[in-house]
């Protein structure tokens, strides 16, 4: 008879192994409850885990910031370049938008008066060269049918008259120039006068040669009278800001605020021909 004698040490390990396999088998599947020992261990570890995680997270944030510094710098550079490009693009778009608004207004004006006048649109390409004259240069000239003494307007009102032309340009004397004089009348009271550059006050224009008793309402609109054969009748010039009697008491003058913004003239219409239709 052969007897197998298993050493106690291995017997113990074998028993342990069997117990372990059994517990593994029963704890491998989803468990609904934990044993008190497991709960206690988790409770013991929880505050430590929480503390370590908090510290690690803070350190991680700091190291992330340090490690990503170069990346952020690169990104910042790219974003700055992008902002620069977009700013330029935005500026161009804004320019187009404003031009579109102005051209639309000019087109409205042209449509409104096309039965009365034949008009040629033009861009302002230059301003006066010195401080003594108020003139502009436009990009249309004799090649486009522009001639001396043609009236120039925009959608706001009267701008001036052509004083000289080249094949592709024309110089326009603005009505605010001291050399300019426009036959005018008050739209409502039909009082005639001459509009010229103002000699005093804050306004750029004044209407002179008005009898002292002629009715001139403040804020009344002044239009061209059509006398003088240069400016067609009915173009808006400005409105009366103030009426000032002359020292001799025989006549008076009115300070006129022009409708046209002469500092930002960009597109104009040259009135080439009066078709003779009534306004």
């Amino acid at each position, binding site marked *: 008879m052969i007897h197998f004698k298993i050493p106690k040490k291995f017997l113990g390990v074998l028993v342990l192994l069997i117990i372990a*396999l059994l517990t593994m088998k029963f*704890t*491998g599947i989803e468990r609904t409850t934990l044993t008190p020992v497991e709960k206690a*261990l988790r409770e013991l570890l929880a505050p*430590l885990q929480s503390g370590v*995680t908090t510290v690690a997270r803070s350190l991680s944030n700091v190291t992330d910031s340090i490690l990503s510094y170069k990346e952020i710098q690169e990104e910042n550079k790219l974003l700055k370049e992008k902002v620069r490009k977009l700013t330029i693009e935005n500026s161009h778009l804004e320019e187009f938008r404003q031009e579109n608004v102005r051209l639309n207004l000019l087109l409205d004006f042209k449509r409104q008066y096309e039965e009365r006048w034949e008009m040629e649109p033009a861009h302002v390409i230059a301003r006066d060269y010195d401080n003594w004259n108020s003139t502009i240069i436009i990009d249309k000239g004799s090649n486009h049918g522009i001639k001396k003494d043609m009236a120039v307007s925009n959608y706001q009102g009267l701008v001036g008259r052509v004083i000289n032309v080249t094949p592709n340009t024309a110089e326009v004397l603005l009505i605010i120039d001291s050399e300019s004089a426009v036959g005018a009348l008050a739209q409502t009271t039909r009082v005639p006068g001459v509009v010229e550059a103002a000699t005093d006050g804050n306004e750029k224009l004044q209407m002179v040669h008005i009898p002292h008793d002629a009715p001139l309402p403040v804020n009344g609109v002044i239009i061209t009278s059509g006398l003088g054969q240069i400016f067609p009748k009915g173009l808006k010039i400005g409105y009366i800001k103030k009426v000032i009697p002359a020292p001799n008491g025989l006549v008076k003058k009115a300070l006129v605020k022009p409708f046209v913004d002469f500092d930002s003239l960009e597109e104009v219409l040259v009135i080439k021909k009066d078709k003779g239709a009534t306004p």
Partner: protein
Amino acid sequence: MKHFFRLSILAVVGLTLESTILEKIAIAGVKPDLMLVIVIFYALLYGEIPAAKLGFIYGLLEDLATGKFIGINTISKMLTGYLVGLGEGKLYSDNLMVPVIGLFIGSIANYLCFFILGIIVGHPEVFPVESFFQTIMISTIYNVCLAPFLYGRYYRLVRGTSKRSINTRT
């Protein structure tokens, strides 16, 4: 008593770190097994029986903290501790190559045991064969890489000796 206290502290620290910051340095989802590293170091210094006991306790603590397959780490770490502990006395424990080799053999033994037990219990979805070799390779290399940083400190801590160098004598 002092020795027991130190090992208890190490267990708590190991469990805490494994479940927190070691996740952040995981490579391909695999992180170093700090508890196993401690058991293997212990085995190299104290031999198979004390290491098997420590492996049993550390493994059980890990299983209880995990709450699943209770016993799998217990047996794996116990057997690993025993196996590596067999080398104690035959090698110079203060040589740096000893923990490197110990961690290499111990890690492979531990994960093989872990995997075999998993197969026996019959949950292949938890222990997939496809990723097993990748996991075992990364874990082993990761654990081995810890040797130069941790062995000297561990040596001084558990032996309670003053600072002494770990040389490269074989």
